């Protein structure tokens, strides 16, 4: 059976972001069905059986996460939508927010119904000015048509949504940092447990879900869990997925495919292959900047949670970055290390000091002042960060460092030995 793209079914239409365009494509039918045919508990079950795993990076089963909410109702429950998208190489949520906000909104409303939440927050990164405007407008449109506010579609269910703008901090995409930021504080990640499902926003039970995850909830509402579970590589890698591809390819972009599409198909058929015909693939990071790199020889992989884990990397946020043979791997890692040093929240010493130290070493290698022991030192620092920090940001830099050095050790050693960047020397710079 041919794959029918649904997450991206509207985005190429003129005015795709308006509610009229969305309704014309059958939008909000899923929500009607959920409110009429499902109790909240039954819809949580439906999402569980769909096999949907979170699209924000960690791949945690969505229905199971919802199931962790405590049973009692002494405190209000909150839904926080993670629209902070800041992982380098990742731009799929931006596409949904700007081009099909109602697809996301419908999933938010159905999810809030499932977890019995009456106030949801849409935490969007501050730089997404267009996305903010579009989403605010979508909310107003949905309210005017009775999909938001009091007694939605006569079901007795009430929901308000507040758009909350971040202010330029990658770490606020980490779920507990997001909560701190929403409470009006510095985005310092919290120590877990307690998990947000138990102690979250304002100390109340809270679910945090990614934008694309919630768009998938819309599809489950519309077509059912059996349909969803039949796409991709069941049982644990189900559903459609948005794959980003950037770097040295002809057509960078967001491509929808079932989980488990081969990376080389995404690269060669969807993204049009390598940008410069004379420069073949050197390496790729299929999952986004904080994931491990694969040298070209290992790029024949399937893009899903379990296949990439087996290949020694992760699907992450599916922010594929492609590098050709003209790329200096030391320079690429230096660029990322700078990013992580800039974005560390500074709470833990290994992360705060380690990222800065990595930048220092990589800079001197790249500049031509490297020392023979530097290569080992990089791996050693990464090892000391990993597992010793409050939040997984530590791994987000330790994994790249470790994997870049392992896969391209000679190139690092060459920099130290020659006291120069061989790439720049070759380019006559």
């Amino acid at each position, binding site marked *: 059976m041919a794959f029918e793209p649904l997450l991206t079914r509207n985005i190429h239409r003129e005015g795709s972001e308006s509610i009229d365009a969305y309704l014309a494509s059958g939008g909000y039918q899923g929500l009607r069905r959920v409110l009429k045919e499902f109790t909240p508990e039954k819809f949580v079950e439906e999402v569980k059986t769909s096999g949907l795993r979170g699209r924000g990076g960690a791949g945690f089963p969505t229905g199971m996460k919802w199931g962790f909410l405590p049973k009692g109702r002494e405190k*209000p429950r909150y839904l926080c939508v993670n629209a902070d*998208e*800041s*992982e*380098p*190489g*990742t*731009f799929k*949520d*931006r596409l949904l927010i700007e081009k099909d906000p109602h697809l996301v909104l419908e999933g938010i409303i159905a999810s809030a119904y499932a977890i019995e939440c009456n*106030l949801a927050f849409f935490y969007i*990164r*501050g*730089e*997404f*000015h*267009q996305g903010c405007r579009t989403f605010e407008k979508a909310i107003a449109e949905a309210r005017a048509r009775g999909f938001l506010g009091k007694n939605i579609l006569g079901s007795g269910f009430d929901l308000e949504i*507040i758009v*909350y*703008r*971040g*202010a*330029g*901090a*990658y770490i606020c995409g980490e779920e507990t940092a997001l909560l701190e*930021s*929403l*409470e*009006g*504080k*510095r*985005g310092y990640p919290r120590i877990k447990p307690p998990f947000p499902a138990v102690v979250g926003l*304002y100390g109340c039970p809270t679910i945090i879900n990614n934008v694309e995850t919630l768009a998938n909830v819309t599809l489950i509402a519309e077509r059912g869990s059996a349909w969803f579970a039949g796409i991709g590589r069941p049982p644990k890698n189900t559903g459609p997925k948005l794959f*980003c*591809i*950037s*770097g*040295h390819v002809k057509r*960078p*972009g*967001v491509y929808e495919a079932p989980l488990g599409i081969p990376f080389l198909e995404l690269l060669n058929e969807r993204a049009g292959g390598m940008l410069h015909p004379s420069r073949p693939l050197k390496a790729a990071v299929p999952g986004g*900047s904080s994931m491990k790199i694969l040298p070209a020889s290992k790029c024949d992989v399937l893009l899903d949670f379990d296949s990439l884990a087996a290949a020694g990397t992760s699907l992450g946020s599916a*922010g594929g*970055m492609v*590098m050709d043979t003209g*790329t200096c791997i030391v320079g*690429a890692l230096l*660029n*990322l290390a700078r*990013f992580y040093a*800039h*974005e560390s*929240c500074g709470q833990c010493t290994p992360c705060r000091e380690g990222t800065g130290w990595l930048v220092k070493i990589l800079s001197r290698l790249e500049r031509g002042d490297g020392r023979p022991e530097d290569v080992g030192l990089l791996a050693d620092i990464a090892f000391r960060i990993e597992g010793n920090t409050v939040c997984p940001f530590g791994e987000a830099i330790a994994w790249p460092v470790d994997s870049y050095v392992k896969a391209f050790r000679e190139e690092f050693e060459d920099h130290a030995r020659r006291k120069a960047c061989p790439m720049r020397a070759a380019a006559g710079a």
Partner: protein
Amino acid sequence: MSLPVRPETDRRIDDLLARFPQKGSALLPALYLVQEEKGWVSEASMEYVAGKIGLSPAFVSGVVSFYTMFHRQPVGRHHVQICRTLPCALRGADALMAHAAKRLGVKDGQTRADGACSLASVECLGACDRAPFVQINDRDFGPVDPSGLDEILKRLE
């Protein structure tokens, strides 16, 4: 005492305070309102916002300094931000930045003396498919090459 902000801004902050289950949540949006009016967030603005929400000025200043989008000094009328993170770097962000600095006559992180523009390199703007990517105030441009940047700037002037 006269208000350090326009009455309209003050009223919008009151609306925010009523909107959230806890007042603290009004901080980031209130700072945005002040910045929208003044162009930046001064010490006086921080004290005013702190007073409105019931926080200490030191706490507010700690929050402001954590986030890169709050300007603690005035920026230019055109705030030109060029992304430099890896996907943009792989497609020529460095050359674009060098060109922009020359064309605008300012260095990375600086504002021109006449206040017309400022230039900053920033981290990934979540639009790596349009690399190299540029944001000027609240508008997005990409992919942008040096001559494309000249065109955009000409249109803005």
